[in-house]
């Protein structure tokens, strides 16, 4: 006798079940979107530990937060925005606490490509948090300036100015190659 085959839950069902507090549904959402949330958080905070904390906070708070997801637009896009805001809040708190990221003592990279990647990582980590956030949101995550203004709670025009400053600073840090 053939085994019964159950179809995987639809995205809509998954959100409904997560909203209702189902841990299995939350785990499934984590498997589908956890890496993306973690990547946004890591790029914004430039810290693996902070990114892990943001990842945890986002998924711990997700069932309640979903009550405010109106279903317009993609869930993944909405979740990345929430992750970005959560990471930004954490960065503000860390700065107020006076926490300073420690310099990276990792060994020298072996190849020129790896060296370039390590350089850009270090340079990004060396940017002021407000500049890094705008650079990452615009250049890596692909948000428009209007969207960045909304996500970060900035004045109109500030995002563009910060992006320019971030690039200038990165030019200084990396050398204009």
């Amino acid at each position: 006798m053939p085994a019964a085959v159950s179809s995987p839950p639809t995205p809509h069902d998954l959100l409904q079940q997560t909203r209702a507090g189902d841990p299995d549904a939350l785990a499934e959402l984590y498997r589908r979107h956890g890496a993306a949330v973690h990547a946004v958080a890591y790029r914004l905070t430039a810290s693996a530990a902070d990114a892990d904390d943001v990842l945890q906070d986002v998924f711990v708070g997700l069932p309640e937060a979903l009550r405010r997801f109106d279903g317009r637009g993609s869930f993944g896009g909405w979740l990345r925005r929430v992750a970005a805001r959560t990471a930004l809040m954490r960065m503000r708190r860390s700065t107020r606490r006076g926490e300073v990221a420690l310099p990276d003592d990792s060994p020298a990279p072996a190849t020129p490509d790896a060296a370039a990647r390590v350089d850009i990582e270090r340079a990004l980590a060396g940017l002021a948090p407000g500049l890094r956030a705008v650079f990452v949101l615009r250049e890596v995550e692909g948000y428009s300036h209007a969207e960045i203004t909304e996500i970060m709670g900035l004045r109109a025009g500030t995002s563009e100015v910060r992006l320019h400053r971030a690039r200038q600073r990165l030019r200084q840090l990396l050398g204009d190659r």
Partner: protein
Amino acid sequence: MTLLHPRLRTLDRYADAAGQGDPRLAAHLLRCARCRRAVDHVRALRDAARSAPVPPPAADALERILARRAAGDRVILPVAAVRGRANLPRRGALAAAAVALLVVSAALLLRPHELEAGRSELMLAPANPRPGQTVRVEYRPGARLEHESVVVLRAQERVADAGQVDGARVVARLVRGRSGTFTGSFRLPDPVVFARFAVEDTAHGRVDANPAWNAVVADAAGRPSLEGLTEQYQALSRIDMLAARRAAERAVSLYPDAPGAWLRLFWASASLAPQAQADSLRRVHRLQVRRLAALSRPGSHDLAELVFYASAVDDSAQAAAARARLLARDSTSADAFQQRVIVVLGRHGGHHARELAELERLWGQGGGVSRQLLFTGVQVARAGNDPAAVLRWGDRMSAALPYTAAYATRSALAYPQIRAEAMERVRRLVRRFLAPRDDDRPLEMAAPEFRAMYRGAAASFLGELGKALAAEGRMAAARDTLELAIADSWDPELFRSVAQARLALGDTAGAVAASARVAADPGTAAAYGDSVLARFGSRVARGDWRAQVAAARLRMRAQVMARAVDRRVRGPVRVADASGVLHDLDPASRKPTLVVFWSRFCPAALAQLGPLQELSGRLRRGGTRVVTISFDEPSPEALAFLASHHYTFPVVYDVDRSAQRAFDNAATPRFQVLDRAGRIRFESYAIDDVLRQVTVLRDPGEAAGDVAARNEGGS
């Protein structure tokens, strides 16, 4: 047409436009290798950033997320900012929540966000200094102190088991560099395990404080010390229980065998967890109690903490066992005396004379090292109605813990049998209050406010002295002392005492003048004027009375305004309502606004919520906006707290601390009164003067307006 080299910013924009940019610029780029390189560099940066590797999430991340959910942990996520007026919420089951939402909604106006405006930063290196190690300080001023050239760093330093610490001292002078950043350095002396910091300018008395500006001193191995983490928890738990819980979690992770660390984690978790999970939380912690009890050779302090931990999770057997182990090993440390006091109270079940006798015996054995013994001595003496013991224990407590002197003196004043001794202590206290030491000034309090607070305390105790003199029948001395008390303050209760003293001395005109001040106060019932006129009959003409009340109002106004400030709210305020939705709060509302900062974990704030409930209804009926801002998180527990106390004043939550920054306030409770334009005009730590402050702002020009009419005796 020749195009000069465009500005770098223009090239950036061109790179962003992905081939859709200005054709003249495109033509220029074909000719100009330098500008082409700049555009290519922007694109190369983008590509490099996109291809930079991202480490994978921690392997146990999902497991920890599910465990946190199962333990009842909840996080309010910043889902979206509300653009425009919020929809009015439907009335829910909890009246308090509904009222809060309605009032907040009415207060909302659309404003652009700029959360970083006015924000300052304080950075310490190293973040966890060792005792005596030089700490470098960088302070980037927000709007508040941006025009200063030199500021000072004050520190509230705590040693292990510090108890209440209010005062702070200057530890460094910070000098502005070319970049606008202030720098300096300091060292924390050896016994200090934790410090909180604030920056202030000495010229204008402005203070920039933030609860997050603190440092835990490291032990010899470079770890944050357990004592430091404990004091950090104590300091944070009054204002931000989530931050306090993080401190407790850190302590547990670093010191898993320290019962005190687990005790504080339990307290924080129990405060934040839903009531329904209280039993399961206690069950989990009972397992920890047993594990810790089984450890070999714990120290005396650990045993004392284990007693409290076991008691907190309702494991009385483990508590008794730990106490017995502690007392078998050590009977004269502060921890041991604390436990012995508890044993005494348990043994005699409220027989105060016997308890006092035993406490006296502990005192004779050196028990003065225990704060618990000193506090208990005063409390039992009061409960036992023993004036001599009240005086004796009060003196002991005041000598060991100077901040308790006012409490001890007030306790003594309640007993006629020791009035002369109590009066002597009042005089001593007044002398101290009139010449306060700056090292006693709380970290967040500006010097002018501190001096005003002490002047107020001196006036209050002079009033007590005057009343005590009157009770002894020394009416002339009572009158003179009371006059001194009211010279620089506005206290209707003291005005009544002055009126009585003057009347007793046959000074009817003076009694009427003092009564007019009572009548002029906005907190006085309308019927008071009638009762005064009825009492004095033909000796007071109605017209004279009306004029005296009007003059008293002018005097009240002058005294209230003498303590006014005038500063703007720095940057927009974004607060969450009970359901976690964020709103912009506009400080200007065409009417005065009372803003109250509080936390349900701050005992001092809780003591003022009852009076606030009473006052807020009155203020709102009179056209004043009331906004209370909690440092708590919006949660079912926070709503249940409001509902269980029947508090209906509006509450919003400062989830991202933008209100704290904008109102430049790190304290709880804190009362700030704003004028119609949204400028902060009054600030205080107590509710006492708020009604007068609002009245003065609401009716700025009147001399003999509605309050005088209300109190002028039915005319």
